[in-house]
């Protein structure tokens, strides 16, 4: 009897929380195929009267440009941030001693600072750099790229440091004793072993950059340079075009979702190294 | 203090499916009679730990049953079987030694006065009465194992299972605990099953040993019989330090021919062998080989002289390539490079089939 009650309670809680998550998702998908009249007229949770796939096509066309821009910025920025992060993490790991004890927590602390506090000083710094270097940075793709890089490298370093720390120390030592220079050790031993961790960090950072709204908002004008801006653009003073917005949001969420679907197991494998589930 | 149980392993086989398909046990049939001290002995991967887990109830065999005193317990979880286990890594809780030992009794809801009596009794037996107040985590590994043993004992289990409990201890503590465990078994008389890859532990502690390899029990016998009459070349190799020497031979006129070594046999023996094939294996333990300067069975050169402290191991090689190791007292005066005469006393020679089974 006692046994059954546990299961009952657990089931109720599960159903309740799942509903909480699924409802907005349902509303999003349902809303994506409603015509404008439908969307404005009927309650959020109603099914579409007649599915209108035009909405999706329109949303896609509107989004295409910003999606491309986001990809152009986020993908290289992710790779470079994680590369730098892993190199830095390895260097700290090798150094050991006080450096390895104090620097990572320091880096961690900087990632705790809310970006809202950092963004204004960062923008003003960018402006000054523009003046000195005579290169336009504000409201440019490459400017946004640089800011992402600056902002996200510490987090990447931290994550990579955690994964690097979990490597069996003696294998790295064996490589040094074999006569490999640190860079060779990194290339031939550390990187292959970090594999899942590296990929997990890449995925995580990419999703971060894809979903970030505030930085593109502060660094650019208009809506084209980042997908989150474009989705937000549907909120107007006159009202919000819900159906197309929903469609846009749905389409915009697809790339990260697809990444998880296809590369998700590497992410999980990477996380497993936290618990020593790897080697 | 006694709760004695007969454990019967009935036709147990087990195959693991993950991470890869591995056959762990094949057709194991063993009976552990109450009050005896038994050992499961074999190299890493032989299946002994799997078998122990099946007896304990941590694993359900893919085939076969486990019976306690005639009752089929194959589906029973460990708690219901009332088995006690002591593992390789001492399991102690973050509390005083007293509380550690009292823990299972408190779970069962016994009175504190009863618990006190039992804890004192058991800690006296194990020899940790004077550290009852110490927090268990502060103890050295050997003492922690004693606490783990005490905690297992206090439950008055039906069966005591040890999984290589001494392999993580330094040699001195290992010896100390071996003595302790043996003394314990004499006093407590519970059925004890001890899993190990160390023959010294098995031979010292157990009355009966199941020698296992590759999922099978090769021989279940007393230490003396395992040593003198190994039913299998693997048993002959595994028991003894070092293990038996083996020579590949062919049946010839009047005896066995092993390359350039000829071993004479009686007519009767040749007769027995000729019915079993033409190729055989001759086994002789290093400590039984006689080495001298005069005549013998054959001549060989000492190619390595291995100093062992208590003895010397001479690696002897004949011109025909036959290699045997002879174990002799350290005072024996044979240097590397010297030639000696080698003899095998008849009653210590064993003959096996080519596939490794004992003939005589």
């Amino acid at each position, binding site marked *: 009897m006692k046994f059954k009650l546990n299961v009952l309670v657990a089931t109720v809680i599960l159903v309740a929380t799942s509903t909480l998550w699924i409802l907005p998702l349902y509303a999003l998908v349902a809303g994506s195929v409603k015509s404008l009249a439908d969307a404005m007229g009927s309650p959020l949770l109603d099914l579409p009267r007649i599915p209108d796939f035009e909405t999706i096509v329109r949303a896609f066309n509107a989004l295409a440009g910003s999606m491309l821009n986001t990809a152009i910025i986020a993908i290289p920025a992710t790779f470079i941030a994680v590369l730098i992060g892993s190199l830095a993490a390895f260097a700290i790991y090798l150094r050991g001693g006080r450096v390895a004890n104090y620097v990572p927590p320091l880096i961690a602390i900087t990632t705790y600072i809310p970006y809202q506090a950092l963004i204004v000083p960062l923008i003003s710094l960018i402006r000054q750099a523009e003046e000195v270097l005579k290169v336009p940075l504000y409201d440019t793709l490459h400017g946004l790229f640089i800011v992402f890089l600056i902002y996200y490298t510490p987090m990447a370093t931290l994550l990579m440091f955690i994964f690097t720390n979990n490597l*069996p120390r*003696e*294998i790295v*030592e*064996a*490589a*040094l*004793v*074999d*006569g*490999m*220079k*640190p860079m*060779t050790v990194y290339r031939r*031993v550390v990187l*292959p*072993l970090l594999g899942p961790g590296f990929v997990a960090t890449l995925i995580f950072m990419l999703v971060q950059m894809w979903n970030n709204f505030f930085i593109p908002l502060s660094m650019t004008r208009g809506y084209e340079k980042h997908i989150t801006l474009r989705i937000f653009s549907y909120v107007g003073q006159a009202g919000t075009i819900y159906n197309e917005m929903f469609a846009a949001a749905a389409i915009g969420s697809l790339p990260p979702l697809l990444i998880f679907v296809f590369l998700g197991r590497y992410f999980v494998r990477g996380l497993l190294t936290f618990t020593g589930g790897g080697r | 203090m006694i709760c004695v149980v007969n454990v019967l392993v009935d036709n147990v086989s087990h195959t693991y499916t993950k991470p890869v398909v591995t056959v762990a046990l094949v057709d194991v049939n063993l009976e552990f009679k109450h009050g005896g001290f038994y050992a499961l002995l074999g*190299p*890493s*991967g032989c299946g002994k730990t799997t078998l122990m887990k099946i007896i304990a109830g941590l694993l359900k065999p893919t085939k076969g049953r486990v019976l306690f005193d005639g009752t089929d317990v194959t589906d029973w979880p460990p708690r219901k079987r009332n088995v006690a286990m002591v593992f390789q890594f001492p399991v102690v809780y973050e509390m005083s030694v007293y509380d550690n030992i009292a823990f299972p009794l408190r779970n069962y809801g016994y009175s504190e006065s009863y618990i006190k009596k039992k804890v004192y009794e058991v800690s006296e037996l194990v020899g940790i009465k004077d550290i009852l107040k110490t927090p268990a985590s502060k103890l050295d590994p050997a003492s922690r194992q004693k606490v783990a043993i005490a905690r297992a004992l206090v439950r008055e289990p039906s069966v005591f299972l040890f999984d290589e409990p001494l392999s993580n201890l*330094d*040699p*001195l503590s290992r*010896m100390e605990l*071996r*003595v302790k465990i*043996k*003394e314990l078994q*004499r006093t407590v008389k519970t059925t004890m099953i001890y899993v190990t*890859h*160390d*023959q*010294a532990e098995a*031979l*010292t502690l157990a009355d009966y040993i199941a020698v296992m390899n590759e999922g099978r029990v090769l021989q279940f016998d007393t*230490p*003396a019989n395992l*040593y003198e009459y190994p039913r299998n070349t693997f048993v002959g*190799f*595994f*028991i*003894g*330090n*070092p*293990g038996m020497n083996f020579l590949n031979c062919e049946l010839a006129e009047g005896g066995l021919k092993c390359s350039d070594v000829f071993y004479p046999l009686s007519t009767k023996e040749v007769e027995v062998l000729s019915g079993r094939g033409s190729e055989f294996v001759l086994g002789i*333990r*290093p*400590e039984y080989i006689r080495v001298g300067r005069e005549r013998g069975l054959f001549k060989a050169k000492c190619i*390595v002289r*291995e*100093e*062992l*402290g*208590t*003895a010397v*191991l001479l*690696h002897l090689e004949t011109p025909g390539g036959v290699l045997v190791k002879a*174990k002799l*007292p*350290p005072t024996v005066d044979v240097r590397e490079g010297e030639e000696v005469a080698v003899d095998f006393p008849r009653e210590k020679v064993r003959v096996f089939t080519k596939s490794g089974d004992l003939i005589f």
Partner: protein
Amino acid sequence: MVDVVVKDLYKKYRRKEALKGVSFEALEGKITVLFGPVGAGKTTTLRIIAGLERPDRGRVFFGGADVTDRPPQERNVGLVFQTFALYPHLSVYENIASPLRAQGLPQSEIDEKVRRVAEMLRISDILEKGPAEISGGQRQRVAIARALVKDAAVYLFDEPLTNLDYKIREAMRGELRKILKERGGTMIWATPDPQEALALGDYVVVLHNGVVEAQGEIHEVYNRPRNTTVAKYFSYPSMNLIKGVVKSREDGVLVDLGFTALKVPRAKLPEEVAGEVVVGIRPTDIKILLAGEHGIWGTVVLTEVLGSETLVHLDVAGTRLVAHVPEIFRAPPGSSVRLLIDPGRVYLFDRSTGELLHAPG
């Protein structure tokens, strides 16, 4: 191949002082065993020699050159870890080839050297496999091959046999010395096992609690242990050490052990030593008598069968003694046996300092 000299090494970890002034020499071309029980400081010492740790104080010299400040990749050392530390993502071949690739040798030379050392260690048939696919004993051979494949200044072995099954260890002991000598070079082998030490070493350095207790030619040190610490740890089976009292000393010494008195012939003790000593008796020098009228009575506590020999743990009037019998011997605990101690084989140590006063032979 060079002489390795370590001078005055001190190393402290958190609260534990691992090394307290360790100095010794490993001669070129010889196998020096670094012997000591768990926690003696063997691994720390080897890691300092390899360059994986810096000592708090002290220097390391390779052939006269001070290498203490050189990082490991510049020391040209071969190291076999206790845990083997093979590269899990590389084949056995690539694992062994690793140090040669780091040196930038041409592929043909690498191939020749890898195959030669694989042949020496009898692993030529598993070169294409991955470390996960081979047994523990094979993995250890690969680890040794990786160390021996290069021409190192010194080869360091950190208890490579400790993690292996007893039977594999037994088999490897005999052939290892041959393999090591064939390879040639300066070798330092760490182990807590006296039998392993005796089977492999030319010289020994006995380490205990971070201090060098003895060093020298291995059989010398074994047969004449400098003090009770060396006698206790560097002996197999461990030497019995009993308190005794010196009674007289004409041309030998009469030592009273309580349960018996031994006349130790030709033992000459310094005048100052009177009264109390520690007597050392090897278990192999205590004989168990099955018949006859001589001998001391003792009670069997446990007969420890080691395989082909037995250690009999005895209680002799309150003193614990261990006797070695070179065959399987069983006697139920509590039974009485008679023993005979060979007085000519007795060691005498100073009771207060533990120093050796007299050794047999």
